[in-house]
């Protein structure tokens, strides 16, 4: 008895507790063994009384109050097993031992804890017997349990009661006999037990020393499931409809919860209610539930409860949709009534309005509500609205309108706007801003939310995050943007990524500095122009470095991809959409270098599509006008890009943009030729030539640009036939560019390649003979020869013999090309001459190297190396020549014209 003195429990150490637990476990195990021995059926003298005595002994171990709830639970588990054995025995042998008598008998046990455990054990066995006075037993047990008022002991005892009676409570709506009890009794029984347990649980908090408050909280959290088990049991009862729940169960439960004024209890139990009771119950009792929450302890986190509730409702809708589909497939007639009932509920109740009003009340009641909580609640509300009212954007507008208001209040309240606080705000609003992007099934609905853009407007970081998410969502879900309106709104939302001005404040500052200098220079004359230039350079470099970092590059690449999602089946309308998009993209400053190329390519593709649809009829003025508008659009876009290049080249040698513009012009020229708009094609070629002359400086790029020009001009068949003068102009110019290249090798190659521009044949299949025939488009053998002669001269003028040799061989190959293609100007005589020239060159070269070889001993090491290098090039050139000769030999077998080539 001294053990139970309450004062000792305070000063006990964990080691001592462990020892006590060990002892108790040993005792219980031993006593259970003894009890089982007396109950053994094979043992003829089963002595129930002795067994009960041992049971009472091990139950006495539960009288301790020295253990933590966890340790106590360990004992409880052992005891439960032992008593289970006992109850099985009683049930099997109840004819020998009259249970009613036994029920009376166990009440004589000395201590209250063993007495009540035994009573419940016997009582529940009694309940399982047919015709037992269930109602009375229930009432008696629940009343007797009041005898234990120690929180932990009481909680476990009542938990034992719940566990034992679990499957024995009457579930019939109407009682069979007076004593058998009915569903209502069961509900009453569970609720009473719940209330008592909750009281015990709450009381635990107020026991012991105040310094152990945190320890108590932890202990209570360990015990919470015992209390919650009652609500779980309640939810498992069948034949309860939402009306009964609303009228009889929930009010009592809620009353207990609100009255206990305990934070832990309120938070936990409300959570359990939301989790365990069916979806439609939640819907039906929404008002009651919400109202009850307004009267809770002010410290309770209503945010948590509300969000759990909303998630539950959202989940309900989603589950129902899935069920709808599967059920409709299976049994339609069976569920019609129920479904209608559910639909009625969801349709009748203005769910959003209710929750919205509740939130308003909540804020009224707690004006100091934390911003973070508020934004989370609003986030949950958007989810609710999107799930239940997918097409009602007013709700969402309302939410964002309210959010804007809160934002303003927040800003005025926190007049000291440090950077951290604004970051905190951003973090809080972020979820709310992203919620519709994640939850809307059709992303474009986002554009219908009225205050959404306004809401983002004030916060740049948020805008950026939202823009990135929108782009990703479009890319992922393949969202097509088909209306002008959507484009306006969408690109407004994306404006943060599109526009460059938000990027860094530095450029803004330096541009301000530049303005100041500009003013100065205006005042003091031209002396300051140099500094002005340097200022503008620094602006450009700032901008440039900021747009070339990886993050921006990836963002812009994705933005460019978005342009592909602008689509309409009608290319003309599609073009209108692109024009609208461009009006936004043009604000990007330097960033247009990422997006414009895509815009132009898409426009070109639209033109191709019109061509394929055979909609381009150049005789129709209106069509012509429209097509021309498209080309003008491209032209102005390229020009904008090109202007950019002039800005950039101030600071860096980056001529990327000029080659880009040149290529874009060439591509457009090619397509314009394809649809027969020769003037436009000519114009674009000229534009690319202008760019070439003005700003392609790098010799490698010059050479490559000329190759591109030749390649494109070579394919412009309409231009050749319809406006030959223009074409001749263009190709002469190209050849001229080629001859002016810096390096001899480049010159030579560009010139012999340009020769192709005067010799263009098209392969066509002859319909009758099915043979490939060649249709000449341009045949000017003389000019071809001139080009080849010129390139020969250039090759000859190379100082390095091995290089000349290689170039000669390449020209020989070019000649063979023309020979095969039937160019009469390239005769066998010419080819033979060329071969002879090369052979002579090789001979003289060999002689000179031999001479070098003889001098080798006297030459120094460096020369030796040079020689070897020369040898290599010479070697490869010779090999190339040999391969060419071999090719000629092979051709002799199949083409008799080759027979005349001799060497």
């Amino acid at each position, binding site marked *: 008895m001294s053990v139970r003195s309450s004062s000792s429990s305070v000063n006990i150490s964990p080691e001592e507790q462990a020892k006590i637990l060990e002892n108790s476990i040993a005792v219980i195990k031993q006593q259970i063994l003894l009890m089982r021995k007396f109950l053994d059926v094979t043992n003829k003298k089963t002595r129930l009384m002795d067994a009960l005595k041992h049971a009472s002994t091990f139950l006495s171990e539960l009288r301790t109050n020295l253990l933590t709830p966890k340790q106590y639970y360990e004992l409880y588990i052992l005891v439960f097993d032992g008593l289970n054995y006992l109850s099985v025995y009683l049930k099997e042998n109840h004819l020998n031992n009259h249970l009613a008598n036994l029920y009376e008998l166990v009440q004589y046990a000395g201590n209250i804890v063993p007495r009540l455990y035994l009573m419940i054990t016997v009582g529940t066995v009694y309940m399982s017997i047919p015709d037992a006075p269930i109602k009375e037993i229930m009432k008696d047990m629940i009343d007797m349990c009041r005898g234990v008022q120690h929180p932990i002991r009481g909680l476990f005892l009542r938990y034992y009661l719940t566990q034992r009676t679990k499957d024995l409570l009457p579930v019939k709506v109407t009682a069979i006999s007076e004593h058998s009890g009915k569903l209502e009794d069961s509900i009453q029984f569970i609720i009473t037990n719940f209330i008592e347990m909750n009281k015990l649980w709450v009381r635990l908090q107020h026991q012991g020393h105040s310094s152990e408050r945190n320890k108590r909280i932890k202990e209570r959290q360990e015990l919470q499931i015992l209390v919650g088990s009652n609500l779980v049991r309640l939810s498992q009862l069948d034949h309860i409809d939402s009306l009964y729940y609303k009228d009889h169960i929930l009010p009592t439960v809620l009353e207990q919860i609100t009255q206990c004024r305990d934070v832990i209890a309120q938070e936990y139990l409300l959570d359990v209610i939301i989790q365990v009771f069916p979806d439609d119950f939640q819907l039906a009792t929404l008002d009651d539930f919400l109202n009850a929450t307004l009267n809770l302890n002010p410290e309770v986190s209503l945010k948590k409860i509300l969000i759990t509730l909303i998630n539950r409702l959202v989940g309900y809708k989603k589950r129902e949709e899935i069920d709808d589909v599967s059920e409709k497939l299976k049994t339609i007639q069976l569920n019609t009534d129920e479904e209608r009932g559910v639909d009625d509920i969801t349709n009748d109740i203005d769910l959003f309005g209710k929750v919205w009003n509740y939130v308003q009340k909540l804020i009224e009641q707690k004006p100091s509500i934390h911003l973070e909580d508020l934004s989370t609640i609003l986030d949950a509300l958007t989810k609710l609205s999107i799930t239940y009212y997918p097409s009602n954007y007013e709700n969402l507008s309302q939410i964002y309108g309210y959010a804007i208001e809160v934002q303003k209040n927040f800003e005025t309240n926190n007049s000291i706007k440090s950077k951290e606080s604004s970051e905190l705000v951003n973090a809080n609003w972020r979820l709310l801003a992203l919620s519709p992007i994640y939850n809307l099934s059709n992303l474009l609905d986002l554009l219908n939310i009225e205050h959404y853009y306004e809401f983002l407007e004030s916060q740049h970081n948020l805008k950026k995050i939202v823009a990135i998410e929108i782009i990703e969502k479009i890319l992922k879900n393949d969202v097509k943007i088909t209306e002008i309106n959507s484009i306006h709104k969408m690109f407004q939302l994306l404006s943060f990524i599109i526009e460059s001005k938000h990027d860094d404040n530095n450029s803004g500052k330096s541009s301000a500095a530049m303005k100041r200098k500009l003013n100065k220079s205006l005042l003091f004359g031209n002396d300051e122009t140099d500094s002005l230039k340097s200022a503008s350079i620094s602006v450009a470099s700032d901008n440039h470095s900021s747009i070339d970092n990886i993050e921006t590059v990836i963002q812009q690449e994705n933005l460019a991809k978005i342009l592909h999602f602008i689509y309409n089946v009608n290319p*003309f*309308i599609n073009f209108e959409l692109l024009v609208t998009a461009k009006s936004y993209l043009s604000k990007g400053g330097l960033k247009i270098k990422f997006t414009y190329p895509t815009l132009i390519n898409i426009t070109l593709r639209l033109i191709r599509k019109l061509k394929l649809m055979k909609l381009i009829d150049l005789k129709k003025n209106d069509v012509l006008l429209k097509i021309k508008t498209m080309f003008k659009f491209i032209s102005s876009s390229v020009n904008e890009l090109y202007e950019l290049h002039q800005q950039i080249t101030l600071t860096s040698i980056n001529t990327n943009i000029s080659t880009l513009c040149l290529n874009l012009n060439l591509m457009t020229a090619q397509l314009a030729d394809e649809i027969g708009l020769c003037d436009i094609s000519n114009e674009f070629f000229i534009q690319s030539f202008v760019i070439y002359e003005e700003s392609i400086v790098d010799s490698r790029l010059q050479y490559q640009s000329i190759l591109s020009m030749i390649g494109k001009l070579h394919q412009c068949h309409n231009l050749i036939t319809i406006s030959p003068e223009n074409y001749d102009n263009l190709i002469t110019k190209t050849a001229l560019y080629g001859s002016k290249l810096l390096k001899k090798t480049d010159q030579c190659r560009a010139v012999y390649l340009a020769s192709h521009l005067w010799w263009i044949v098209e392969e066509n299949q002859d319909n009758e003979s099915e043979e490939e025939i060649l249709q000449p488009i341009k045949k000017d053998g003389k000019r071809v020869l001139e080009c080849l002669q010129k390139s020969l001269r250039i090759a000859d003028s190379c100082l390095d013999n091995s290089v000349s040799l290689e170039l000669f061989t390449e020209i020989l190959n070019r000649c063979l090309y023309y020979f095969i293609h039937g160019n009469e100007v390239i005769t066998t005589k010419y080819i033979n001459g060329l071969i002879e020239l090369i052979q002579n060159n090789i001979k003289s070269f060999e002689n000179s190297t031999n001479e070098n070889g003889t001098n080798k001993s006297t030459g120094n090491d460096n020369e030796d190396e040079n020689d070897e290098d020369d040898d290599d090039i010479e070697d490869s050139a010779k090999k190339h020549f040999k391969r060419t000769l071999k090719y000629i030999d092979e051709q002799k077998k199949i083409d008799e014209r080759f027979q005349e080539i001799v060497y």
Partner: protein
Amino acid sequence: MTVAYQIFGKTVQPHVLAIATLATVIGGITVPKFIPSSAPTSAPAETKAPQAAANEEIDVEKAIKLKVYKIFVIAIGDLHIPERAIDLPHKFKKLLTGSSATNKIQQVLCTGNVTTSQSSLDFLKSISSDFHLVKGECDQDTNLPLSLILKSGDLKIGILNGFNVLPQNDPISLLSQARLMDIDILIWGGTSKVEAYTLDGKFFINPGSATGAFSTNLPDKEDLEIIDSILKEKINNDNPEDDTKKTNSEEEEQQQQQQPKDEDKEKNTEETDGIKESNANDQEDESQINEEPKLDNEKNGEQLQEEKSVEDGEVQNEINCSNIEPYVDPVPSFCLLDVQGYICTLYIYTHIEGEVKVDKVTYTKSEDS
């Protein structure tokens, strides 16, 4: 002139006959596994047999060696992301990133036109660390080489973007380029059109565009024919009295049937457009209009109305390109080269109507070359 043709016809025909353009080979076999199961080693042994019948031991050794040096090479290019395409087809990505692929692919050869997209460049590099890239016409990086020569097994492979071989895509100019580079296989690109053929003992491969990127070059005749037939069929559908079935081949009809959804959709929009149009004209079918309260249709209608006021023709209002949409762009494709000694087996992967199809071509380097 005619003489020239005849001469030309005679001389060039041998080459032309050798050309097997595979771009239009639609009926291929779909191979579920990406990497073909290891080819029988007997193949190289057989080709070697006549050459060195006297010394069989060496043959066996060689065969073993050949098996060891079996090399898988990916040829890919002309992605044009983001300018002309959004991404590779999902199924291509899956093929190229699957474990069977990344373990076995030793080399990736890229024909260029990829560098404007960092992400796709990273993707290609992730397939194999042995990644080679040549400069394409649209690539801005001047440090990239214009052409590369690599050795794979006993074959020399050259790679370049087509823009620097003129005239572009001309078999004979490509042949002379291959002669210059002294290579057995030439991989070129720039046209978005997949091709593979043997000419004068050399193998020419154009892996096409892995994204099916649009090209400003003239479209293929075959594609044009398909589109023409679709347009014709549409006209037939529009005039049901014209019951006489036109000369559409069966294949094209099948293609039509394979896209019933698209067609339906487009019919719907067509109808609604039509309604709007009549609304703008004479306001007759008001009951029908009320059945179409959708916002976007109305917008379209407005748009159409505007256009109408600009021009008097009625054609523009009915324009609908969704029918031909799948044929506007080239077919996405790339190639896998399985190099074993003197033999290169080429697998051409094409993405047609959502399915990946595989065609196989084998090239053996002739002994004398």
